[in-house]
């Protein structure tokens, strides 16, 4: 379980995140939604231990989160900073050398599922295929928590669909939790158990997707619009 208590993150004088309480339970899929600049990516970095909160605390299974938490958290950034001259297969070997929980066979299975040529150089991959490769090497880690920052951002509908299906096929929901930031809400909604709205750095609401549909008779996008109006 990841638990955040009253976390605040300041960059110089601007507050990016303010007073957020949050709990990530095992075996569930969470969506963090909100407008651009709302603070959702900052929140994800804080949960992953890549950023340190200015105030408040974050624990993973009771232990404080640090940069060393990377052993229990697989984090996928929305930047592409892979070494461009690597082949896909070399990237897989590199990941294997960096993470003890990296499952090389699983990575290869995911790449096959997503129809990626293992011998292609990264610099020759299309944006969509690079997105698929990023997902493959992240999900191939058997870490209890997978945090994905905007996994569908800027990708075309076919690629988005294959990424969603790759997540369903390969994430082990008996043992892994997933936290996804996104503004492609429609594509991601059927994948989510719960959604968290971040608005102007604060947590505005958190609900189960089924409850939103049942009680509010709205899909998540409609609910987000109503709550942030």
């Amino acid at each position: 379980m990841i638990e955040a208590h009253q976390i605040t993150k300041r960059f110089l004088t601007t507050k990016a995140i303010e007073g957020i309480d949050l709990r990530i339970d095992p075996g569930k899929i969470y969506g963090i939604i909100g407008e651009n600049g709302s603070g959702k990516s900052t929140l994800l970095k804080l949960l992953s231990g890549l950023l340190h909160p200015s105030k408040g605390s974050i624990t993973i299974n009771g232990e404080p989160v640090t940069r060393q938490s990377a052993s229990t958290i697989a984090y996928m950034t929305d930047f592409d900073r892979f070494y461009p001259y690597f082949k896909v297969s070399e990237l897989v070997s590199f990941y294997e050398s960096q993470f003890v929980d990296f499952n090389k066979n699983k990575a290869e299975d995911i790449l096959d599922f997503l129809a990626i040529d293992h011998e292609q150089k990264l610099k020759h991959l299309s944006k969509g295929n690079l997105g698929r490769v990023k997902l493959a090497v992240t999900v191939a880690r058997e870490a209890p928590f997978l945090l994905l920052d905007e996994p569908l951002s800027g990708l075309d509908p076919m690629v988005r669909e294959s990424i969603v299906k790759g997540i369903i096929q390969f994430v082990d929901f008996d043992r892994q939790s997933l936290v996804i930031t996104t503004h492609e809400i429609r594509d991601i909604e059927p994948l989510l158990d719960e959604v968290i709205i971040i608005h102007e750095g604060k947590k505005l609401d958190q609900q189960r997707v089924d409850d939103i549909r049942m009680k509010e008779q709205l899909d998540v996008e409609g609910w987000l619009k109503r709550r942030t109006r």
Partner: protein
Amino acid sequence: MGIDFQPDRPIYQQLIDRLAGEIIREKRKPGDKLPSVREYAVETGVNANTIQRVYREMEQMEIVQSKRGQGTFVTENRDRLHELREQMKQTYIEYFVKDMSDLGFTISEMTEGLAEHEAKKGEKE
């Protein structure tokens, strides 16, 4: 993206209706094996926890039966399937009547409308 879900009802309920519909029109026959939770999750693009709930609720409704270690199967109880067909009919009538009432139509306008619709369809054929 996979299936177009309606915005105002939980996804698991829509998947139950979808599977129940396939069972009623015998696209899935009594005794047929349903896809595994994972397979159906990938096929529909839906969270595996949701699919688990779909199968669990359908089992409580006695439309499907799970056999340990083998998977989930459409029930072979024909009476239950007949009952399900009637239930689905009632459900869709309720949706229809609710939508039409919301638009201000009376029940007699609805029945007249249905008769006219049927008659027109007859002319075309």
